[in-house]
Each structure stands twice: as C-alpha cells, then as structure tokens.
C-alpha cells in the first residue's frame, strides 16, 4: 500500500481545500512560523484514526475545525482524505475493494466524526486496522511530532518497548 495524496478541507488553518501530493523520495515542507506546517502532520494522524484531542494540541476534538480568521467566519465541519494506492491489494479483506482507496474522516461541530472508505461508511476500528496492517497509523513511530525527537530518549524503558513491538 502506498500513500499518494493528503487532502484537507476546513481542518485547522486549512479553510480551503488543499492537496499535499506524496511522491517517492524526499518531500520538503517549509514556511514561516505559525503558517500551518505541523497542522498537516496532525491531519494525517487524524484521518488514520487518532482518538485523543490532546494529540491534536486541542482542548476538544471540535478544535480541529477551522475556527475563523479576521476575514473569514468559522466553519462547522472539517474533512481530511488520504488517497492510497492499493494496487498490490494488501488491504484487509473487508476494505480490499479497489486499486485506489480514499479514506475520509469528517467531523461536524458537536456531532463527532464519521469515517468512510471509497464513500462507504466504516468504523474507526476498521480504519485503524487498515493502517496497522500496513505498519503505520496515528501512533506510528515514523510520524515524529515537532519537539518530540528527544522524547524517545527520555521516556521510560517500558514505553520504549512499544517501538520494538512496532518492528515485530
């Protein structure tokens, strides 16, 4: 399974629809402080099934919905889609429906989130399993949060074992 594209609409500071194309090799992302770079990483964790609002640096999960700027009103929903190349048909049986999978998570203010794969509603659990099977997911050690690189070193030995379990 390969990651092809991340699409955000109304997620945090990305009010307008935005696509980040994911290609092989090294993709660099730059920009001034506060422009939204780390929000992109959070969008990726969120669509892969992140259930803790703390991991979104938020005080409630609704905080991921665009809250407005001096020129624009806030929105009431946010949506993130991951477009995956599944031509190797490695997805779990229940979701192994096509060569391209579009995994979408959508949240409405005060109504919680809904997950869909190629338009069909699925459970959060199904999405989490889909990514766990592909050695990734919202808690993958390969998604390194800003300022957290030293955390691995300073955390307790038992917590570090989780890293090995990921490798197993």
């Amino acid at each position, binding site marked *: *399974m*390969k*990651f092809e594209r991340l699409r955000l609409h109304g997620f*945090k*500071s*990305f009010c*307008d629809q*935005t696509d*980040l194309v*994911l*290609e*092989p*090799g*090294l*993709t*660099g*992302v*730059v*920009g*001034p402080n*506060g*422009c*939204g*770079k780390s*929000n*992109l*990483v959070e969008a990726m964790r969120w669509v892969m099934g992140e259930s803790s609002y703390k991991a979104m640096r938020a005080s409630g999960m609704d905080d991921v919905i665009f809250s*407005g*700027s*001096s*020129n*624009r009103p806030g929105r009431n929903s946010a949506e993130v889609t991951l477009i995956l190349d599944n031509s190797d048909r490695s997805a779990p049986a229940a979701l192994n429906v096509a060569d391209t999978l579009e995994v979408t998570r959508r949240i409405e203010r005060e109504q919680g989130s809904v997950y869909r794969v190629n338009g069909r509603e699925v459970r959060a659990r199904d999405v989490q399993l889909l990514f766990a099977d*592909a*050695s*990734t997911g919202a808690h*993958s*050690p*390969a*998604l*390194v*949060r*800003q*300022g957290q*690189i*030293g955390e*691995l*070193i*300073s955390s*307790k*030995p*038992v*917590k*570090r*074992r989780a*890293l*090995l*379990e*990921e*490798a*197993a």
Partner: protein
Amino acid sequence: GRARLNDAFDKVNAHFSDLFTTLFGGGTAELTFVESEDPLEAGLEILARPPGKKPQTLTLLSGGEQALTAMALIFAVFLTNPAPICVLDEVDAPLDDANVERFCNLLDSMVERTDTRFVVITHNPITMARVDRLFGVTMAERGVSQLVSIDLTTAHAVREAV
C-alpha cells in the same frame, strides 16, 4: 509473542548500532532488555557512547546527540519493518551544520534502501537544498493556510521567504 519480539530485537539492535556509528562518525551503541527476563514484560534500555567519550547515562548526552541517537533508533525500526510514510517535523532543529549534513546523508540512504515516502518539515537551508521536491505553506491571507509547490531552482533563493 516472545519469539517474534526476540527476533525483532536482534534485527533492530543490529541496525541501530550500525546507524549510530554512521551518524556519529564512530562510537558504539546497543539496546538491551532491562527490568525483566521476559521480553514481553521488559523495558528497552539504550546504551550510547559517542566517539572519544566514556559510556554514560543517556540523559547526559547533549540535545543534538539525543536527537541523532533517537533518529538512529527510529530508522533501525524502519529498516526492520518499513512503514509506507515517514514525517519528520523539524527534527534537524537541535543539530549543528555538520550533523544536519549527516542526517541528510542518512535520509538519502533510507530512500535508497526502502520504499518509504518521506516528508521533512524544516527551517534549515541545508535540508531544504537536499530534498527532491519542495512545498511552501503560506498564510498570504492571515489565518488561512495555503500550500504552494516551489520550483527547486528558486528554492535555494526562497528559504524562509514563503
């Protein structure tokens, strides 16, 4: 269960000590199980010794040394069980110029050895100059993020201007 974990430990440990020596240009590092005989209960301890120094507790390592050690461990896990995507959010911030170059060399070798797609968020011009493609996030309209693709030949001039 136990056999799988032991097997993963051996592989990760081999990669870890190899990557550590590459990143630091010398020295040694290894992983050990602590706090229990049973790998399913035990904790994972890291022993790292930068070149020319005596082995010490991990917390005595400097900010940059800890970042490099952590990268060696993350990539060791990677080589054992590659993930489809890796996103690194300003991991080069604590590094000096020489170590940023070493970090970029490691990234290049990871790209060759795995199918993983890497996204690297950075403010460091050295890292910016070594990627295959570059996106800029701007807030041309204050409070609203937009993504623009940057032509690499202009990238060397652009740095933080986006």
